[in-house]
C-alpha cells in the first residue's frame, strides 16, 4: 500500500487549498480555487481522467469483482472455469470451517502482533531514542544499515536470510555454535518474525525520529535540571508528545505487515503450513490450487480487515487536524 500522508506533520490530504494561496490574489467568493491557467472544468477533468481510468480498472474494479468471484465456484481449469456457478456463501462457510484457514488467520495475527506491533514498533522507537545522543557517524552508520534492510529488493533479502539461517553452513549457526540447527524448520514462525522486524524497522525509526525532534528541548532541559531519571523523562515528557505517532505508526505497519508477501520467498508457507500467513494462503489456494472462488472469498475477508485498519487511520488523521 502506499501511504502518503506524512505522519510526522499531518499534512493531511483533506487539507483544503488554503495553504496554496501564496499569491494572495485569491477571490474569497470562489472558495480558494482560482483556475489561474484557464484550464476550465472540461480540460481539468480530462487531465484527471487518465489517472482515474487506471485507478478504476486496477483498484476499484478488482475490489468489487472480488465480491462476485467470491460467491461463485470459479476455478482456473476444468468445467467450472468455463461456466462458473453461483454458490452463494458456500465459500465463506467453507473457509470458516476450514482448519487451514483458521490456522492461517491465527498465524497472521501472531505475525503482525510480534513482528510489527511489538517488534518494529519497539525496536524503531528504541533506535530513534538512543540514536539521538549518538555521535554523528554512529548515527549515520546505524541508520544507513536499517534503511538498507528496508529498501533492498525482497528477493535479495529473502535469500540473504536463507543463507544466514542455513542448517549446514549458515552464519548464524557458526556464530552461535549450533551446527546443524535448521532454523527454518525448527522455528519457522520465529524466523520470519525476526526477519520482518529486521526488514521493516526503518519506517518506525524514521517516524519516531521525526516525532522525537518535535519534543521541545526546553522541557527536556527542565526535566534534566530537576533530576528526572531517563525513564521518568521518557514517560512524562516524551511519551505525551509522541503518543499520537505511536498509534499512527502501529496502524500503518500493521496494515503493511498484514499484506506482506515476502515471507513466501523464505518459507513458501512451510513447513507443513506453519508459516502460511493469509497472503501465502491465498496464493497457495487460488493461484497454485486454482480455486479462484474460494481464494476470492478469503481475499474479501482480507480486504475487510484492511478497510477496518485504514478507517481507524483516517479517523485518526481527521481528529488530529
Amino acid at each position: 500500500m502506499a501511504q502518503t500522508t506524512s505522519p510526522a506533520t499531518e499534512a493531511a490530504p483533506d487539507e483544503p487549498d488554503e495553504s496554496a494561496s501564496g499569491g494572495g490574489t485569491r477571490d474569497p467568493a470562489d472558495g480558494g480555487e482560482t483556475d489561474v491557467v484557464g484550464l476550465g472544468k472540461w480540460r481539468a477533468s480530462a487531465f484527471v481522467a487518465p489517472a482515474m481510468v487506471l485507478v478504476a480498472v486496477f483498484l476499484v474494479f478488482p475490489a468489487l469483482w472480488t465480491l462476485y468471484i467470491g460467491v461463485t465456484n470459479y476455478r482456473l481449469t476444468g468445467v467450472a472455469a468455463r461456466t462458473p456457478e453461483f454458490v452463494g456463501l458456500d465459500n465463506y462457510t467453507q473457509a470458516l470451517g476450514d482448519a487451514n484457514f483458521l490456522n492461517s488467520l491465527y498465524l497472521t495475527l501472531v505475525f503482525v502482533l510480534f513482528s510489527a506491533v511489538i517488534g518494529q514498533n519497539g525496536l524503531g522507537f528504541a533506535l530513534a531514542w538512543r540514536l539521538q545522543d549518538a555521535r554523528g557517524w554512529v548515527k549515520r552508520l546505524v541508520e544507513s544499515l536499517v534503511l538498507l534492510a528496508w529498501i533492498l529488493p525482497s528477493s535479495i533479502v529473502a535469500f540473504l536470510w536463507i543463507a544466514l539461517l542455513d542448517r549446514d553452513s549458515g552464519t548464524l549457526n557458526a556464530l552461535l555454535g549450533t551446527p546443524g540447527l535448521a532454523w527454518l524448520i525448527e522455528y519457522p514462525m520465529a524466523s520470519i518474525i525476526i526477519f520482518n522486524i529486521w526488514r521493516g524497522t526503518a519506517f518506525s525509526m524514521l517516524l519516531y525520529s521525526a516525532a522525537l525532534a518535535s519534543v521541545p528541548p526546553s522541557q527536556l532541559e527542565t526535566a534534566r535540571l530537576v533530576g528526572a531519571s531517563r525513564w521518568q523523562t521518557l514517560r512524562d515528557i516524551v511519551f505525551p508528545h509522541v503518543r499520537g505517532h505511536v498509534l499512527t505508526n502501529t496502524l500503518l505497519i500493521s496494515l503493511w505487515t498484514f499484506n506482506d508477501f515476502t515471507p513466501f520467498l523464505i518459507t513458501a508457507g512451510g513447513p507443513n503450513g506453519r508459516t502460511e500467513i493469509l497472503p501465502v494462503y491465498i496464493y497457495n489456494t487460488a493461484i497454485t490450487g486454482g480455486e479462484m472462488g474460494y481464494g476470492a472469498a478469503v481475499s474479501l475477508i482480507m480486504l475487510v480487515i484492511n478497510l477496518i485498519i485504514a478507517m481507524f487511520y483516517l479517523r485518526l488523521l481527521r481528529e488530529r487536524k
Partner: protein
Amino acid sequence: MSREDGSIAASASERGADRPVSGASEAPGKSTTVAAEPNQAAGQPEPARPSPPPIMTPRQVVGRIGFYTVIALATAFFALPMLWLVSTPFDDTPGLSISLPDLTLNNFRDLMDNPYALGSLLNSIVLAVGAALLVVIFAALASYSLSRVKIPGRDMLLYALLLLSSIVTGTAAMVPIFLMMFQLGLIDSQIGVILVLSGGLLPAAIFILKDFVDTIPKSYEESARVFGASSFQILRHIVVPVIRPGLATIAVWTVVNVWGNFLVPFILLRDTDKQPAAVLMRTFYTEGGAPNLALISTFSLLYSIPVVLMYLFVNRKYGFRFHGGIKS
C-alpha cells in the same frame, strides 16, 4: 496499492542537526509550529546549567557501556545478513557462510553465462521505467488539476483514493487481478504488469504531487498569463520546472517500488524471457539441486546496486527524512 514491498520514504526536507523534519513538501504554514520551537529554544538565553563534571560517575560509565552495547548489537543485527551480499560475489569458493574472500572475479562469469540473468535486469528496467513514466505523467496532470480547479466532489475523491490505495493491496487483490489479466489475455505481458503496478501507485503519487503543487504561489501562473502565455506554455515552462523536485521524488519512489516488487510479475509473467530480476532470482535456488551461489551472489549484487545508488542519491540530496512514508 503499491504492490507488496520495496519502499522508500523520500523527503523534501533538509537534513540538519537541529532542524526538525518539516513535512510533506515543506508547505509553509503546515509545519511552522513544529519548526519554530527548537529555533526559539535555541534563541532564548540559556538557563544557567551546571557544567558537567569532568569525570564520569561509575553509574554514567555503566550507562555509556550499556548504550554502546545496545548500539553495537543493533548494528550487528542489521549488518549480519547483508555481509554475505558484499563478500560472496568476490569469493573464490562462494559458500553460504560469510568469510573473508580470496578475491576473484570469476563468479561474474557464471552471471554472464546464464542465458536469462542480464535479460531479466533489462526487464526490470523496462518495468520500472515504464511505470515511472506512466505514474509521473498521469499523476502530474491529475494533481495539477485537482490543486487548481474546483472539480465537484474533489475532496471526497481524494479521500476515496487514499482509502483505496491502502486497502486494495497486491496481496489482497491478487485473485481478481490475476483473473482479470488472464481473461484479457494479458498474462505474460509486460505492459500488463506496468499497468497493474501503475494503477496501484498512482493514488499515492497524486497525493504527494498535489502537496507540491499546492505550494506554488498562483501569482506565478497569473503573471505568465498577463504576458499572454497560453495554458500549455504556462504548464510547460512554469509549473513543470517548479514542481520538478516533486516529479523526481515520484519517479525515484516508483522505480524503487517496481524494481523490488515480486508478487505482481510473479503471478503475471510465466515466460522466463520476460521475467524481471525479482522473479528470475527465485529460479536460481528453488529448482532442485544445490543453489548456484556464484550466480546468486553476483546477480544479487548487480540487482541491488541501482537501489543502493538511489538511496545514496536521495540521502545526499534531501536527507532520508519523512515525507511520505511509502511502503508498499
